[in-house]
């Protein structure tokens, strides 16, 4: 274990973390607490929020919308994407709209969402679900469409039926794209839930940022941001690992 620590890849991040935290602490103490907060204050706030249960409650609310929204996005997105890929006409017609929605920053769509869904769980869920589902669909469709024609020919030469073709060629070939879509969809979901909580219904972790802002308590804001950053990192890293595992057959040529 100690040997591991001697490696630069281990001690340098720790070193830089110490430096950053140290510098932050020093700078933080000298600045007006209404503007900035040192790590000690953030940790203190973290403790406070945990003690009152506020942080856990907020995290739960965030997780609910995030996981439910993402799950729905996967359940709807993958079949929809397969349909878009298998019926090129359908996919082509739909593509401009999906792309337009995808390219529109959600912050500006919030007023519309409020008009349609009001301010509540449903609205926030939509914000998570819809954009995540689009990412998943589009990538899945791409995977289905970009079946390698040479391998399709190989399968045909061995008289594979359409079902066998799908099972042995199309689906495995599409898997990398689907998995990439799932990862992108997850990233979009995270952003979506935070937007909803900061603008639509002030609850959850995003809500703590907003309240921290209006109460002029930077420590609160920083605390919530930290938690979100950590959560985001965990989710994305987990998905990265899954993606790599599922692609072990690709080797270097990914």
């Amino acid at each position, binding site marked *: 274990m100690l040997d591991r620590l001697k490696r630069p890849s281990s001690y340098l*991040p720790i070193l830089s973390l110490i430096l950053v935290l140290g510098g932050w602490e020093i700078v933080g103490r000298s600045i007006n607490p209404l503007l900035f907060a040192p790590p000690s204050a953030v940790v203190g706030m973290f403790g406070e929020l945990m003690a009152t249960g506020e942080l856990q409650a907020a995290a739960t609310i965030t997780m609910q919308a995030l996981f439910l929204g993402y799950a729905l996005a996967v359940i709807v997105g993958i079949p929809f994407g397969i349909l878009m890929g298998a019926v090129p006409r359908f996919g082509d*017609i739909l593509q401009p709209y999906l792309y337009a929605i995808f390219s529109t920053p959600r912050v500006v769509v919030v*007023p519309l969402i409020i008009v349609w869904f009001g301010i509540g769980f449903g609205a926030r869920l939509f914000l998570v679900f819809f954009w995540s589902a689009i990412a998943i669909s589009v990538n899945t469709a791409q995977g289905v469409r970009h079946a390698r024609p040479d391998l399709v020919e190989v399968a045909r030469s061995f008289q594979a039926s359409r079902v066998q073709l799908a099972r042995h060629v199309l689906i495995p070939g599409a898997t990398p794209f689907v998995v990439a879509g799932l990862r992108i969809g997850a990233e979009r979901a995270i952003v979506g839930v*935070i937007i909803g909580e900061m603008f639509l219904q002030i609850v959850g972790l995003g809500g703590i940022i907003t309240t921290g802002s209006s109460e002029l308590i930077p420590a609160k*804001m920083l605390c919530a*941001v930290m938690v979100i950053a950590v959560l*985001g990192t965990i989710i994305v890293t987990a998905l990265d690992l899954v993606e790599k595992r599922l692609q072990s057959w690709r080797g270097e040529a990914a």
Partner: protein
Amino acid sequence: MKTRTKRDIRRDQLVGVAIFLGVWEVSAQLFDKPLLLPPVSAILAALWDLLISGELLTALGESILLLIVGLFVATVIGFVFGTLIARSKTAYWMLNPYFSALFVTPTIALVPLVLVWFGFGFTGRVLVVVLAAVVPILFSVASGLRDAPGDLIDVARSFGVKGEIPLLFTVRLRAALPVLMAGLRLAAGRAVVGMAVAETYLRLGGIGGLIKSYGAVFQTDYVFAAILPLSLLGITLVTIIARIERRLHWA
């Protein structure tokens, strides 16, 4: 399976759009709740009004300015730090975790902090765009430089190119260009989001501000009308970069 030409696709898409807009118009008129679903005609009218009054162009101008400045600064910072972590293992191990963390943190979550530190000014808004866009550029620069084109370096050296900086510019950056463009494309998309976020949250200016102010008074037709140019801005920017990216792909 009959192959579909680009013309077939365009034709289908246009027909699709025409039908879509037609259905929208008719159902919006029948539904008669302009607040929830403004008819296409109302949206177009609102768009026209925004154009004539100059509101749209002013707002668009402010947005594009913010976008360009933000992307420029993000590119510079991205290049500097990207080169740094590509060439120095120490720098990589010390700085990379923060860049990764920044990448996965929704820009929106950082905005209140920027507000507290920089207020409602232009600097703050630029910072938001930079925070949104810098990491993809940084990572792509680092990635592009890391995969050094060994042979090409030798070729350059044999023709008398001496020193790291000249080598950097003559060979490395050029070889890394495709990866850079991919990163820039990703950054552009995020920059547009950052720009919209900054305008909505930090100051009611630009397109973001326009949408928000009409949203606040529930003029849904104007909201739609203002969202259109914003989407187009994002799509156009990303498409341009994607085109350049495709041209650069010699592999």
